[in-house]
């Protein structure tokens, strides 16, 4: 993965920039020591690393504005960072950049039940938001698998999803307002506790812009009353096609499960070996979960099982208790850990139309053979968001490159099938150069024009999202 050559003129003024930052930040908020800076050299895409010029950890919107103002004046690139859990390299620094981390912005500013929102500083973790309100029967819906660690700032930057999107949507559907600092230090308020924009939906534009338009320091999030209960059913099939058809029939029948998870044979096996969840030996497994009161759950699961039976399942296991539910989810939730035990793996994130599921899975199987690398599939079937895991050996020369090449082919396949490169992880550096597979030059130009408006000098997280060649002229200006 190519990154731009650091600008020597910026490296040369490192001391001056650090001295200026030191005038506005307390000592502990500015990291210049090399060993400490190294902790910020990568995010969860650990294959790529680079130590930044410095790390600033502001504790208020005012400090964020002051940092950005100085960097803007000095022409120094800034890479915003939440908790550094990005799988796409969204928080990867360059040598000539300053990391602006929101880790010290962790306050809960307001909890409002009558209006059903919570206002937080964005360094708070996703799970801590739910933790703040669950005692009172509420929750924050988006639940990325990294929710224990990931920050709301990163969730907003990547428009994160999770397993329950089919019913509750992703971050953008649960975000009501943001306080954001532009690269020149201007603070703007977008949205609020009301439900629609006064003019253009700029907040909608900011959500998912990967830290390229501004640094979001505070967010107003919609909270929802917790459902009375939830229970899954586990359904095994002897082919991916049949499992795909079953998903489609469930959706057509008018049931709206809160999650439909899909695992293929390689994934089932690995999970079974790892977690001993008691999964059947079959080609494809669905976990379908519904919510409501006991009677409501019975009614919906009854309907789902009736549909499943028409597809001759090899296994049909309705959870009758909390215990059984946990067991059914255990395997799925440990899928990534299970894979990590056997191998190094790369996790993809393309989305496809649900109807092309069987075709795409068949093609992935063929490609896997072609490249000589195993691929296990686990994904959110209801919304078509796939997570193929390509297994490789990082210690074997050439394996990572082969894995990346296969990954690129699979993502191209997702686009060809009518889908997209990334459903919830974001583009970052990982899929940057594939953007021209999904978008025509005019489409990318339209997106880059937006960055021109918010960050005319292209200093915020500049080497991400767009193919380097496409953004070169703007970054150099």
């Amino acid at each position, binding site marked *: 993965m190519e990154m731009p050559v650091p600008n020597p003129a910026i490296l040369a003024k490192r001391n001056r920039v650090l001295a200026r930052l030191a005038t506005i930040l307390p000592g502990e908020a500015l990291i210049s020591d090399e060993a400490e800076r190294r902790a910020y050299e990568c995010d969860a895409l650990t294959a790529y690393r680079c130590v930044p010029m410095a790390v600033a950890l502001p504790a208020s919107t005012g400090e964020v504005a002051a940092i950005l103002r100085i960097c803007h004046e000095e022409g120094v690139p800034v890479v915003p960072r939440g908790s550094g859990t990005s799988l796409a390299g969204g928080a990867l620094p360059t040598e000539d950049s300053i990391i602006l981390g929101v880790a010290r912005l962790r306050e809960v500013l307001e909890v409002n039940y009558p209006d059903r929102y919570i206002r937080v500083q964005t360094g708070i973790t996703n799970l801590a938001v739910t933790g703040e309100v669950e005692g009172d029967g509420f929750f924050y819906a988006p639940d990325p698998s990294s929710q224990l660690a990931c920050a709301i700032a990163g969730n907003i930057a990547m428009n994160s999803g999770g397993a329950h999107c089919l019913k509750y949507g992703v971050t953008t559907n649960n975000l009501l307002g943001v306080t954001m600092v532009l690269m020149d230090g*201007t603070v703007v308020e977008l949205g609020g506790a009301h439900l629609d924009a006064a003019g253009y939906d700029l907040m909608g534009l900011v959500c998912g812009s990967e830290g390229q338009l501004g640094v979001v320091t505070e967010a107003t999030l919609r909270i929802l009353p917790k459902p009375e209960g939830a229970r899954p059913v586990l359904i095994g099939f002897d082919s991916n096609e049949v499992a795909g058809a079953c998903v489609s029939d469930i*959706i057509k029948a008018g049931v709206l499960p809160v999650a439909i998870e899909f695992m293929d044979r390689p994934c089932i096996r690995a999970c079974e070996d790892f977690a001993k969840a008691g999964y059947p030996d079959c080609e494809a497994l669905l976990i379908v979960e519904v919510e409501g009161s006991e009677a409501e759950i019975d009614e919906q699961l009854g309907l789902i099982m009736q549909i499943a039976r028409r597809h001759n399942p090899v296994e049909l296991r309705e959870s009758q208790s909390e215990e059984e539910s946990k067991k059914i989810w255990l395997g799925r939730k440990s899928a990534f850990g299970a894979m990590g035990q056997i191998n190094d793996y790369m996790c993809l994130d393309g989305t496809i139309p649900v109807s092309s599921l069987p075709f795409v899975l068949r093609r992935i199987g063929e490609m896997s053979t072609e490249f000589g690398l195993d691929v296990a599939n686990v994904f959110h079937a209801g*919304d078509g968001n796939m997570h193929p895991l390509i297994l490789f050996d990082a210690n074997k020369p050439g394996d990572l490159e082969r894995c990346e090449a296969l990954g690129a082919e699979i993502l191209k396949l997702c686009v060809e099938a009518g889908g*997209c490169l990334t459903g919830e992880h974001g583009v970052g550096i990982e899929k940057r150069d594939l953007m021209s597979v999904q978008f025509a030059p*005019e489409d990318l130009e339209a997106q880059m024009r937006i960055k021109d408006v918010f960050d005319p000098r292209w200093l915020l997280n500049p080497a991400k999202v767009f193919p380097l060649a496409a953004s070169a002229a703007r970054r150099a200006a």
Partner: protein
Amino acid sequence: MRPASEDELSEMVRAARGPLVVRGGGTRALGRPGIGDLLETGGLSGITLYEPGALTVVVRAGTPLADLEAALHAEGQRLPFEPMDMRALLGSSGIPTVGGMVASNASGPRRVQAGACRDSLIGVRLVDGTGTVIKNGGRVMKNVTGYDLVKLMAGSWGTLGVLTECSFKLLPVPAAEVTLLGDEVSPQQAVQIMGQALGTPYEVNGAAWGANGRVALRIEGFAEQVAYRGAALRAALGGTWEMLDGEASADLWRGIRDVKAFAGQAGDVWRISVRPSDAPEMVARAGCPVAMDWGGGLIWALCASGRDLRADLGAFRGHATLIRGSEATRAALPVFQPEAAPVAALAQGLRARFDPRGVLNPGLMG
């Protein structure tokens, strides 16, 4: 001008030498009467892709909304956000189109639970002010590839581009619905009751208070589910509630959605978007006939012709839009709430990039 294809539309915009008035069915026109050549999208019509099993549809922007809704209904599905029909309120005629609905981000009572039009919109194609065709998003419901221009286009009233195609995620039409209709209460009490109802796990997807002073709460789902939740909600709230179901319930919500109470009534109509718990104060400041939707988050106000309601509301967190006004009111007052300077500058910057010649509905949004 009435292009028959996206290419033709692109040519027409490129060739434009002066302002264009972009129009779908012309049923949602607001603001000052547009000046310029009329550009109608009705020629771009038809559903291009509908996959009921994937809960998604792709449709050309000039398609009559009724046609889309009929096609979805045939498969037991619908647009989740319950778009209003503005004809009765505005006294407009014509055929509402998909593009007009998106351009105005039209979102009805179900917005409180199912989200707005912008939340169900998953892809767009458009022609910008230079005549360039741009696509964004797609036909899958989970997509974070690149910037989300889809949200930007929803509610941009044709000022950044002319929509040619839109994709939506859909929901199944529930088997049953029930409405709880309460006793007459004050706006203050109404907001409190609606907030309490929306805070229960029974998935209330309509919470409104009308000119008759009665709170209406709606639940949809499977038949037994609706019966259970209706009873549970009634028990949770206490008090006496009249229960409506089937067509009676549906009819009530159509009236709320379309603000039937103010249709044909003399005066200007404003739409105020506000934090629900601030609604009673806003209602008091307005001091005119009002109706509340979205649990109090949306206030419709009918006030004397020519009144600057925004001035009387004073500073508040939210915004007020002039939906219907006399020619004099429309000449004197901006349609949209003026924004803070840095936000207005961003909006202006976007217009300058997407429509550098200022030909698309110039002046409508600033």
